[in-house]
């Protein structure tokens, strides 16, 4: 892990506004992180914390009617994607930055063959035609460990199981040789055994291609297996970022602590399951101070009034909490 490398993706102060009849709010509220080539950054949080919105915002695919990216920068390979035109942005999607989604059962078009859906990306991103197209598609399917790729090309999605479909989605994502893969809870809908195999596959591809992976999940087991670094999100903000073992051993933010504590541990016999009291705030509610303050067991007055800045600690942690402001 070389320290001199430049991050392939730098997100700075990203703000995505969401609104409609129920009001307005920031689904992504001043989010910043770096992704290095070849590393996996986990994005963890409860549902509604803004993880998916963040991913969609990077690709500028947030629902146009209800959302609007209002601030910040998304610097990919030296260029700010937020300043790109629609056409330029399309050039990045699938080719430099790919995305895989959560539900493999619905991710593929049911009326087109698997082959056609892979060909589409190959044609668009690599300009292949004819026999070269088929060859490349077979190679991709082999890479994602689909047995009998040639037959797979003419098959339809419903012929595949969930795990296999997710691999196909992976193949499509790799068709353009991207630098970054954004994975939005790709294993949540899979069986545990299938999960493990898929994560293995992902890791091996990452090593081969030096792929940077932004991995969204709410499952800490997956985090420990997959991620080099983790960013914890709450109410649209990143409250803590750290290398994975650091995060598990010495969580610095009260929210991270509570999250880790609420994961049931078979080794420790607890009297009762720990659940964080209260609810995450609605995205439409007005914000003052730290968003976790109402539920934080260590909240101080200052927490409720001022939003803590993000501070880098010496052990590689970045935290946003008044407890660490001296």
């Amino acid at each position, binding site marked *: 892990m070389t320290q001199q490398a430049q991050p392939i993706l730098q997100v700075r102060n990203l703000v995505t506004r969401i609104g409609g009849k129920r009001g307005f709010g920031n689904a992504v509220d001043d989010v910043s992180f770096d992704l290095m080539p070849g590393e996996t950054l986990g994005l963890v949080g409860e549902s509604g914390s803004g993880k998916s919105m963040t991913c969609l915002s990077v690709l500028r*695919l947030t629902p146009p009617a209800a959302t609007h990216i209002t601030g910040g920068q998304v610097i990919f390979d030296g260029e700010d994607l937020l300043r790109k035109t629609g056409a330029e942005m399309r050039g990045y*999607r699938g080719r430099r930055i790919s*995305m895989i989604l959560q539900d493999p059962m619905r991710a593929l*078009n049911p009326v*087109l063959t698997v082959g056609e859906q892979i060909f589409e990306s190959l044609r668009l991103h690599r300009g292949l035609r004819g026999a070269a197209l088929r060859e490349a598609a077979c190679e991709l399917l082999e890479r994602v460990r689909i047995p009998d790729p040639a037959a797979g090309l003419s098959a339809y999605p419903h012929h595949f199981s969930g795990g296999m479909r997710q691999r196909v989605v992976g193949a*499509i994502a790799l068709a353009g040789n991207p630098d970054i893969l954004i994975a939005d809870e790709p294993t949540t809908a899979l069986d545990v055994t299938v999960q493990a195999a898929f994560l293995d596959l992902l890791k091996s591809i990452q090593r081969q291609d030096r792929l940077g992976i932004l991995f969204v999940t709410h499952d800490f087991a997956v985090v420990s297996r997959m991620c080099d670094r983790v960013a914890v999100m709450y109410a649209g903000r990143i409250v803590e970022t750290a290398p994975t073992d650091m995060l598990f051993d010495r969580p610095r933010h009260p929210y991270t602590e509570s999250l880790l504590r609420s994961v049931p541990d078979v080794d420790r016999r607890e009297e009762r399951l720990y659940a964080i009291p209260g609810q995450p705030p609605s995205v439409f509610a007005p914000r003052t101070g730290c968003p976790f303050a109402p539920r934080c067991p260590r909240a101080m007055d200052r927490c409720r009034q001022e939003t803590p800045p993000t501070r880098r600690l010496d052990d590689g942690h970045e935290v946003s909490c008044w407890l660490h402001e001296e």
Partner: protein
Amino acid sequence: MTRLILSRLVQALATLLVTSLIVFVLARSSGSPADLVLPTDATPAERALYIERMGLDRPIAEQYLIFLRDAVQGDFGVSIRTGAPATELVFDRVGRTLLLATAGLAVALLISLPLGVMAAVHRGRGWDRFSMGFALLGQSTPAFWLGIVLILIFAVWLRWLPSSGVGGWQHYVLPSLVLGWSISAGIVRLLRSSMLEVLDAEFIKLARTKGLREPVVVWKHALRNALIPVVTFIGFMYGVIIASGVVIEVVFGWPGLGYLAYESTLWRDFPVLQLSVLVYTAIIVGINFLVDVSYGLIDPRIRT
């Protein structure tokens, strides 16, 4: 797959038989079926002969069998009006009706496909309102009246198009326009709601992440899926389309099967009417059968 086809075929034949039975029973129930079939100037002797030959004094079941026997041999009786065999008259006209129906369907698809897609893509805004307004108007307009108004404007006042009959392409314009108009309203609504559903799907999101241009996402990925219920609808509605065809043929003097059926009503020419109804039913059943089979072509999930 062959099993599916066979079972559908059997169903189709059953429907045909049931229809013929219904028509048969209705004819027999009108008091004196002989009067329906014989010319008004038939002598009592001719009547008696006919009654005996057709077995009208025999039990109903037997009569039906006689009817079927004759039908299978292609004998559907003779036109009261012209004296020619009913089959001759009917089969002469069928082709024109099918042509008109196809032209009307083509016009309908030409209008409703873009409107339905646009309405969904621009939901809540201009195109959507226009399409929905159009659909509402289409469903509220009686086809026969629209035909008359168009004839008035384009044939009588402007003299751009002919008002009736067959001939060159000019004769197709107004009738297929009216037919298409009346069908398209339903299609626009259905396509719009179907597209809205499909555009929400995961695979559409994924298609965008692949970097595909929006028109490709909409027309290649979304529409193919959204059309599935529309095809079913069209197959389903074919009976209605045919019925609209009858009225339009009458208004435009289009010498097709519908016009023949209408004329035979005026002349009380029952044998011709009976055969017309049966042929219409056969066409509808045939189309439904084709739609069922082609379903597998459109939606690969059915094929297994």
